[in-house]
C-alpha cells in the first residue's frame, strides 16, 4: 500500500499520485495496490447521434418545403400537408424506436396521429368550402385505421402469453375511439355509413368479448389504471 505524506493517508488504489491532493506518493515496501474500480471506457453515443441526425433532417425538410411553398405560392398551403407527414415520421419514429413507452400506448398514439394527418390532408387538399366536411378522412380513413389498430391489438392480446393484460386498457381506448366515426356519420358529417358501422360494431363486440372472457383482468387492470 502507498502513502501520501501531504494528506497523511494510505492509498490502496493503483496510481502514481494521491487521489486527494494529486501529489507525489511514497511507495511502501509491501506495495500492494489494486485496481479497485473498473477502468473507464468512453460511452458510445451512437443512438444520440442518430436522433440528432434524424431531427436535423426533419427540420431541414420542413423548412425546405415551407420555403418552396412560399416561393411558388399558388394560393394553397400544400407544405402544411407535407410538413405534417414529416413531423409524424420524425416525432413518432423517435417515439416508437427511442422510448420505452408501452407498445399499447404507442399504438393508440399512432392511431390518433394518423387520423389527425388524414383529416389535415383532407381538409387542406379539398376546396376550402369543404373544410367543415372532412368527408373521406372521417367516413373511410378513421374507420379503417381504428379497425386495423383494434385488430392489431386483439392479435397481440391473443398471441401473447405474458403481459396480455397490459393491453386491455389500450384496447378499450381504441374501441372508444372506434365509435367516433360512427357518431360523426350520425351527425351527418360524412358519408358513406358502412365503414363506420363495421368499425363501431367491431369496437362494441371487442369490448363485450374482452369484458366477458377477461372480466377479472379488466376489473383489476382498471383498478390499477384509475387508482387514486
Amino acid at each position, binding site marked *: 500500500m502507498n502513502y501520501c505524506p501531504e494528506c497523511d493517508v494510505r492509498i*490502496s488504489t493503483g496510481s502514481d499520485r494521491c*487521489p486527494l491532493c494529486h501529489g507525489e506518493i511514497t511507495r511502501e515496501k509491501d506495495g500492494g495496490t489494486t485496481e479497485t474500480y473498473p477502468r*473507464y471506457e*468512453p460511452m458510445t453515443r451512437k443512438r444520440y447521434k442518430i436522433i440528432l441526425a434524424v431531427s436535423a433532417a426533419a427540420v431541414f425538410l420542413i423548412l425546405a418545403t415551407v420555403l418552396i411553398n412560399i416561393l411558388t405560392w399558388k394560393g394553397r398551403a400544400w407544405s402544411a400537408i407535407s410538413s405534417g407527414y414529416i413531423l409524424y415520421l420524425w416525432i413518432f419514429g423517435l417515439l416508437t424506436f427511442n422510448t*420505452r413507452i*408501452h407498445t399499447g400506448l404507442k399504438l393508440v398514439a399512432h392511431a390518433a396521429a394518423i387520423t389527425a394527418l388524414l383529416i389535415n390532408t383532407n381538409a387542406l387538399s379539398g376546396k376550402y368550402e369543404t373544410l367543415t366536411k372532412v368527408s373521406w378522412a372521417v367516413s373511410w380513413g378513421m374507420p379503417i385505421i381504428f379497425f386495423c389498430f383494434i385488430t392489431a391489438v386483439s392479435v397481440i392480446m391473443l398471441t401473447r402469453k405474458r403481459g396480455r393484460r397490459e393491453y386491455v386498457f389500450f384496447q378499450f381506448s381504441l374501441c372508444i375511439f372506434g365509435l367516433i366515426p360512427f357518431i360523426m356519420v350520425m351527425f351527418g358529417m360524412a358519408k358513406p355509413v358502412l365503414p363506420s358501422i363495421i368499425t363501431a360494431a367491431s369496437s362494441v363486440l371487442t369490448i363485450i368479448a374482452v369484458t366477458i372472457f377477461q372480466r377479472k383482468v379488466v376489473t383489476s387492470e382498471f383498478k390499477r389504471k384509475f387508482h387514486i
Partner: protein
Amino acid sequence: MVRYAAKDMVLLMKKPENHEPKWYKLDNAAKIYPVVVSAKDSYVFRITANMKDEVRPDILQQAVNDCRDRFPAFYVKLRRGLFWYYYEANEKEPLVKPEPAYVCRRIDLRKNNGFYFTHFYYKKRISIEIFHGICDGAGALEFFKTTVYRYLELLGLPVLPENLILTLDQKPEPAEAEDSYNKYYSGEERRKRIITKAYKPCHKGFLHGGAGLIVGKASSEKLHSIAREKGVTVTQYLTALLSYCYFKLGEKEKLGTLPVKITIPVNMRRYCPSTTLRNFSLFFHTSVLYTSEMTFESILEVTKKQFISELTDKKLRDTLNSNVVIEKNIAVRFLPLFIKKIILKTGYKYIGTRSSTATVTNLGNIELPNSMMPYVIDFELNSAAGKRSNPNLSLVSYNDITTLSFSRGILYTGYEKLFFSFLAKQGLKIEVQSNLWEDYS
C-alpha cells in the same frame, strides 16, 4: 456447477400460488422519483460487499433469481396509471452484469429487462444499484444481505441466518411491502415548510459526466471514540466536518449570505416501528451561516443542537404528516398524471435541488451472521452524483470498518482532501481508494 440442497430444490420447484401479477401503489416518498429522474439525476444508490474470494457470476445470477419470491416488491416494473404511477410484478429475469465504470447511472430499463435494480460483479465485489423509487437504504440492505447470503449458500458454504437475514424459506410479510408513511399518518399537526436557498460552490464538472468516487476506510471504534471525545455522535461529527470543509474552501462573500445546509436522511423505522422494505425515511437539514470567528468546534456545537432539535418524535411525525397530506389532497389525487409530472418537475427543479449544499447518509452498522463474516470483508455505500454535484458523503460500518464514501460530479477534490486530512490529524488511520474519475476528464 450450481449445487442445490434438497430444500433449495423444493423452493425452486414451488410454483407461484397466484398467477395474477401483484401490483403496488408507490409509497409517499417514491411518488416523486419517477417524475424527477433524468440522465443528470439518477436517484440510484449502490451498496457493495467486498468478498473474500472472486465472485462467480453464474452463482450470483442464480441467487438473484432465487430471491424473487421472497422480495416481490423489488421484482417490479413501473407502469403508468391515469392519476399515479404504480409498480407491477415483472416476470422477466433480472440481469447480473459486470460492474460498469460509471457509478449509479440512471438505470436503462431497456437493457435491464424493466427492473429498477441491477446486481454487478467485479473481481471480489458484489454490488447492487437500486432506484430510490423502490426502496431506501435500509430496505435495499435487507434485500442485498439476502442475495449475498443466498450466493454463499449456493456456493455450498456453511452459512446460517442467525435471525439476521430474511431467508428464502420465509414467506414475505405484507408489512414488508406496506407504505409506512400512510400507516403513521395521523393528519394532526403538520410542519410548516420554510425552503431557503443553500450555499452551492461552483466547480468544473466532468467532461463525460459520471461520478468521481473517493472512499476512505477507517476503524469504527476509533472514529466513535473521536466523536465521543467531543460529546457527539459519528454522524453529527462528520456532518459538522463536511460543513467545516465547505466553509474553509468556500467563497466567503457567498457564504456570508447563504448557509451551508447539509441534508440528513433519517431512517423512520427507528421512530415508528415498521418492517417495511420500501421507502420509510425522511430528511432534515442542518444549516450553518458563516462568521469570521467560526471554528470546527463552533460548527459542531450548532450541528449537535440542530440534530437534537430535529430528531424528536414529534417533529418527525409532523414532517411525515405534512408530506402525506399533499398526497391525500383530493385535488392532487384527481389531477391527471401528466399534469402532476409538470408541476412536480418544475417544483423540484426550482426548490428541491437548491435547498441543500450536500448530503450525509449514514446507513449504520451492518450486522451479519457470524457464519457469513469470514466471507464478507467490508461494505460500501455510494450515492449518485448529479451533474456538477458537490461531494456527498455516504457511510456504512461493518466489522469495525467504517467506509466513508464521497461521490461527486466535479473535478475538484479539495473537500475530500481536507476532510480526510482533518480526520487523520485526529489520529485516525485512513486507507483511501478512488475511481480516479478526474483522470478521464
